[in-house]
């Protein structure tokens, strides 16, 4: 008697499935294009800004430790600073756009409103506050920097108070804004283990496990898009 379809395990295919599920979020794309756009904007905005923060931290630490003086100096001073500014503003804008679309969906769309709970709202407000306070901090910093540098912060520029200011003049505002931004980020980090954001760490693990298993069974991971959409239409 013929056995049911079982594909041999193939680490290359499993890796491809994992990459497409985690980095392209294929499953979400098939579920709903607007939701995919929102999630992908927030996902890459978040990753881009996290990478920038990590890079900044390493470069600053390297600068202090004089491990390699050229690289930290290049990126932390005007010559290479434009890369940092463009990177930060671009990913900040992507994140802000994603959050704005998520807010519209969450508060305006009936289906999303019905399925939302306190945690969804808290996270959305928290992420929006972090992004906006980050841009406000950036705007204040630009106000005390030479005009040549500020032009690379093409989004942060709009958050900057008009005119040039002396550092001393804006120091209390800068400090307050930094404390606010830092506190919000710290709150988010503390909230992550108690919230749905844990999925950002654990979902890739589960997807990875499933990718190899489901590929071995040869069943679920690649359903035809058209079939999926057709099947979904009648709800409840």
């Amino acid at each position, binding site marked *: *008697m013929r056995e049911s379809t079982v594909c041999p395990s193939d680490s290359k295919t499993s890796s491809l499935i994992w990459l497409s599920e985690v980095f392209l979020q294929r499953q979400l794309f098939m579920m709903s294009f607007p939701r995919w756009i929102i999630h992908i904007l927030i996902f890459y905005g978040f990753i881009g800004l996290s990478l920038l923060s990590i890079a900044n931290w390493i470069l600053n630490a390297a600068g202090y430790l004089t491990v390699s003086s050229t690289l930290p100096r290049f990126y932390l001073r005007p010559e290479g600073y434009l890369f940092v500014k463009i990177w930060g503003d671009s990913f900040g804008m992507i994140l802000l756009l994603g959050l704005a679309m998520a807010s519209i969906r969450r508060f305006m769309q009936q289906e999303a409103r019905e399925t939302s709970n306190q945690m969804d709202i808290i996270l959305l407000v928290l992420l929006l506050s972090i992004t906006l306070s980050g841009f406000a901090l950036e705007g204040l910093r630009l106000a005390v920097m030479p005009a040549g540098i500020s032009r690379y912060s093409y989004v942060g520029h709009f958050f900057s108070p008009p005119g040039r200011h002396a550092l001393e003049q804006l120091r209390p505002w800068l400090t307050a804004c930094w404390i606010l931004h830092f506190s919000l980020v710290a709150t988010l980090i503390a909230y992550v283990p108690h919230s749905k954001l844990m999925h950002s760490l654990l979902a890739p693990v589960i*997807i990875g496990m499933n990718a190899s298993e489901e590929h071995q069974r040869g069943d679920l991971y690649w359903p035809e898009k058209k079939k999926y959409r057709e099947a979904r239409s009648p709800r409840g």
Partner: protein
Amino acid sequence: MARKEKIQGSKIAAGLTRRQLIELNACTRCAECRAWCPVYAQDEREVITARGKLDSLRRFVDGTLTEEKREDFINALYECSACGQCHVVCPVRIKTHELWEQARLSLVNAGIPQPAGQIKELAAIKEFNNPFGKPRNERPRWAQMAWKAGLLKSPVPIWGERPASVIYFPGCMASYEPSLQPIAVQSARLLQEAGVDFAILGEDEPCCMSKLRRMGDPAFPEEARKRADQFTLMGVDTIIVSCAGCYKGLRSDYRRFWPRAQKVVHLSQYLDQLFQENRLSLKWKTPAVVTYHDPCHLGRHNQVYDEPRRVLQSVPGVKLVEMPRHREFSCCCGMGGGLKAVSPEIQHKMAAARVREAETIGARAIVTPCQTCYLGLLNGTKEASSSLKVLHLNELLVRSICPDVTHESVKNALASTKS
């Protein structure tokens, strides 16, 4: 132990696998499970949905679930047919149905028993080796009566008297339930028509015990091992089952105890093979516009989608129309996971929803290759006051191959033989 007593979350966590503990926190709360859940469609409570149950179970494990919500969660855990639809639509693909079964087991081990309806059914299975509490010697009676009534080409041999390499395993439902016995008779007759040398286990046929796994009974591994040892000693080559529940039990659940579990095949797969080998010939035309209902345990849980469809489409005159929800997205009839024992009214409503779905596409009959789904869908037609016919896959085949054993004629013949 009473449900109200304080249970430590660590006890529940101890019963779950590491992967399942990760899964509790991997939910994105996207609510896709809610949009698809066939139980939620009938009882709109958040705790019914996969994300609701995941959240409650996580809190239970953390020790932050309130007393009142704990009761809601336990009820919701059992008010689930474990159909696996939420697994298919989950962007993370959390293995929900396995998680629910494991959570039930974990709760039982922690001292929280199943609902009364399930306890009663489990007790009957363990004591009588079938859920009806009927004696063993009644199990092969369908075959004896069918031979007496002239419905079979030859008597169905009992394996203990005349061993064969192929076993037909009708399962408890088709062996004992009079409205389902025609399915066992038709299966045997179709195998005879194809010249298959097979036997049944007769009084020695064990219950597959898959319901123990579905309802979280701790005795399942021991009972499954016993049965696996029995099959190994017999040295059978193929076990043909006509129930999707038995198929999932023997093939998927036994896999870790029995390396030869791959030898278990569903009747629809076996018939498909017989057709491909030209061992069965369809003679009479059976005009009918039918739709096919994928049993969860056969489809989503074991990926058997094509073989029954091929068999169905091979019947001359049959036109197959698909329901909007088919294959991986087939809507559960509510007969699985012990749901019916807990909440028959929800099962009836779920089956009625499926029947209405079939009606909307203009089908005159809904065909299923599972005797349990067959029974569930019959409940649905009553609930929906529908004239839609519910047919087992065998029915269309016998109408084309051996029309003397249609469901009605077998049912009547068996009833008159019995009396």
